[in-house]
């Protein structure tokens, strides 16, 4: 059993290493970006093998999906070939990389053995609290969701603030703000596939509702299975990205307007933080969901997690779509 797992691990690792070396070697940036997508997807598989299903889900949606889209979008606006790396850069780079590696391998000599149940990580009282007591305290079968949204809910608020920051920053750097409202469908940029692409349009139309439905399923099923606000937001955004690619930026901007997105981006964060403010006003600590329903704390936890995850989903979806619009819109102008 454990032997098979090692075989799978090593096979996946071989793919990862090949992809990483490929990225280092190729001078075509398109290939490098696609290899990075492959790297992410393989990473996600490795995470599944290591039981981190939520992380795998996110990695696949973000690393292989959104991030690749953004890389390709950038390459469409810039050069796709790379100059030969001057050797003067290689030696110091190699020294730093090897130095870091040596330090890490030195560290690994005293790291607890891999997957050993006697590890400090597994022996700490946290483990019991999260895996057992959480059932009485929070009552959410997916422990990752319980920890993410409640025990370490403040980290997750920070995470939403990070993605909000990225949205604001990219909007500030690339956004077409005001005065330059949604382009008419006729001026759709590269990527808008008009006319003869009937197959694509039909399939895209057919899939769209299911993608959005799946996003909602992931959003609300996060208590019981892998998923949650973050993954749902990215999937929702992926649906809109698909729509934009097939029908053009103009149409997409008419359906999901940048104005609405610019409202939703802060609203998600405000919703999350607002739950915290509400618990403060109800006499609890910041983000103490028990205060939402003093008679039945578990009910309060459920309500809190639901609202907080909704906040995550809203901000993430808005940020991802805005990021994509910002890159795609830049192409339309230049």
């Amino acid at each position: 059993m454990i032997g098979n797992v090692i075989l799978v691990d090593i096979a996946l690792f071989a793919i990862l290493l090949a992809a990483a070396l490929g990225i280092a070697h190729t001078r075509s940036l398109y290939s490098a970006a696609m290899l990075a997508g492959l790297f992410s997807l393989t990473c996600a598989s490795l995470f599944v093998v290591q039981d981190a299903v939520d992380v795998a889900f996110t990695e696949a949606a973000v690393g292989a999906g959104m991030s690749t889209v953004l890389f390709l979008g950038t390459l469409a606006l810039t050069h796709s070939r790379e100059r030969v790396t001057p050797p003067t850069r290689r030696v110091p780079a190699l020294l730093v990389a090897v130095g870091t590696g040596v330090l890490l391998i030195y560290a690994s000599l005293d790291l607890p053995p891999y997957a050993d149940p006697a590890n400090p990580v597994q022996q700490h009282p946290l483990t019991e609290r999260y895996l057992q007591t959480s059932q009485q305290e929070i009552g959410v079968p997916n422990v990752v969701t319980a920890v993410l949204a409640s025990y370490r809910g403040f980290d997750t608020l920070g995470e939403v603030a990070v993605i909000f920051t990225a949205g604001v920053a990219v909007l500030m750097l690339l956004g077409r703000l005001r005065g330059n409202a949604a382009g008419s469908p006729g001026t759709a940029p590269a990527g808008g596939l008009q006319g003869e692409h009937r197959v694509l349009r039909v399939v895209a139309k057919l899939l769209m509702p299911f993608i959005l439905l799946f996003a909602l399923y992931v959003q609300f099923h996060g208590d019981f299975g892998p998923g949650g606000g973050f993954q749902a937001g990215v999937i929702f955004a992926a649906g809109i990205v698909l729509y934009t690619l097939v029908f053009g930026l103009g149409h997409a901007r008419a359906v999901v307007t940048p104005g609405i997105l610019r409202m939703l981006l802060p609203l998600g964060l405000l919703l999350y933080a607002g739950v915290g403010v509400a618990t403060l006003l109800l006499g609890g600590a910041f983000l103490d969901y028990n205060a939402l329903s003093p008679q039945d704390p578990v009910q309060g936890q459920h309500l809190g997690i639901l609202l907080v995850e909704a906040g995550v989903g809203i901000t993430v979806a808005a940020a991802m779509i805005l990021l994509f619009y910002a890159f795609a819109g830049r192409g339309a102008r230049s």
Partner: protein
Amino acid sequence: MTANLPALQVLIPLLAAPLCVLLRTPNAAWAVFAAASACSFVFAIGLLLTLPAAGSISYAMGGWPAPFGIVYVIDAANAWMLVLVSGAAVATAVYARVSIAAEIEARRIYLYYACLCLCLTGLLGIVSTGDAFNIFVFLEISSLSSYALVAMGRSRRALLSAFQYLVVGTIGGTFLLIGIGLAYALTGTLNIADLHARLPGADNRALIAAIAFIGIGLSIKMALVPLHAWLPGAYGEAPSAASLFLAACSTKVAVYALLRFLFSAFGIERSFAVLPLTQIGLLAGSLAMLVGAAMACLQTDLKRLLAWSSIGQIGYIVAGFSLATHDGLRASFLHLLNHAVIKAALFAVAGMLVLRLGSARLEALAGLRQRLPLVFAALLLAGLGLIGMPLTAGFVSKWALVQALIAEAQWVIVGAVLVSSLLAVVYVGRVVEIAWFREPSGATTAIAPIPLSMQLVTWALVLLSLWLGLDSALPAQLAGNAADALLGGPR
């Protein structure tokens, strides 16, 4: 309400950021940022005052107790930093209104204020938290917003500087993440006090690597020589208000985070025993003093000159705490404050020059003293503080540092402090020489009067630095308390 102060002072700027984006007008966004900084400042002072004499206030986020959830722990060391950071934000807010309106495209201003709010949130969050991973999350909030703040500078070099800052900063952040991961692997916890209780003894190789990774990661964020390459571009090219804010507190917060890891999480008995941190820190610190000051002498732009000088000043701070003595730490904390005030005043001056002259190139300053007497008077007074003239704030903290070094018989480092102070005379003197004694070059077009708000901030900072130089009893006592809090073991 007072019980919730630790959460509120971070929460208010965090709420302010989305509010800025929703309101979408420059004035409203400015008002939100200003109000949020003022609230944080008041709350921070409230925390400093309500702090029990030798204790700490802890606040459990979500009501989950220490190792299970995230707790904020406020003690003498970080209450002091909170006042510093939020105070810098207040100064920036008053200063920014005119400065940003002049330097940023009008329809992007509200986003700029949102980024300032986020940067403030991140910095306050790093300082307040008692959780190692939470430090990483808020460090990334402040870093990401800093990259954006820098990128909006006027010239295209700002974009390039921001990109370099982003790459280097992310490496630093990821190194910190590796270090936290190694410490987590050894203990199973992320809470700083719990880490201190559970970490293994000194001979563990993973522990040594964890300290090394965290040290390197945060040294990048604080621009310690030789990891300083990102800073001159970032501070030199950023819009004036952002330069002021970042120079006053961004690298200082990284110093604080490193102190928190070394003294509270790993504990002095581990961190200074397994690695020769005293020697490394003194070496890097004195290198930073000399390199920073020497490079500052070679600059042709006032903002870049000040940025290089900041690299040098970080050297003093690092040399202080590397001694791992009470006096050394006290000197570090004192210099953190004094340098923040002085450097903020100088960047405020540079911002006024940028506003009226279009740039802060040194040659453009030739003979301008007669025409901008107040501006250059402020520059001179703050510059004297930077050198460390007696009766200025800079002298107080440098003197404390020299005393701490002498107590440990580190004569070579004392020499480095003196040499770098002499170099500071050279680079401040150069600016003074150009502004006072050179013939004005080119056309003498009229210079419009400088907005009152910017002058006000500049003079408030200059006067504060003078006060800190004349009456150092209160800051010295607070810095001493901060040093006690860190040396008193785990929180």
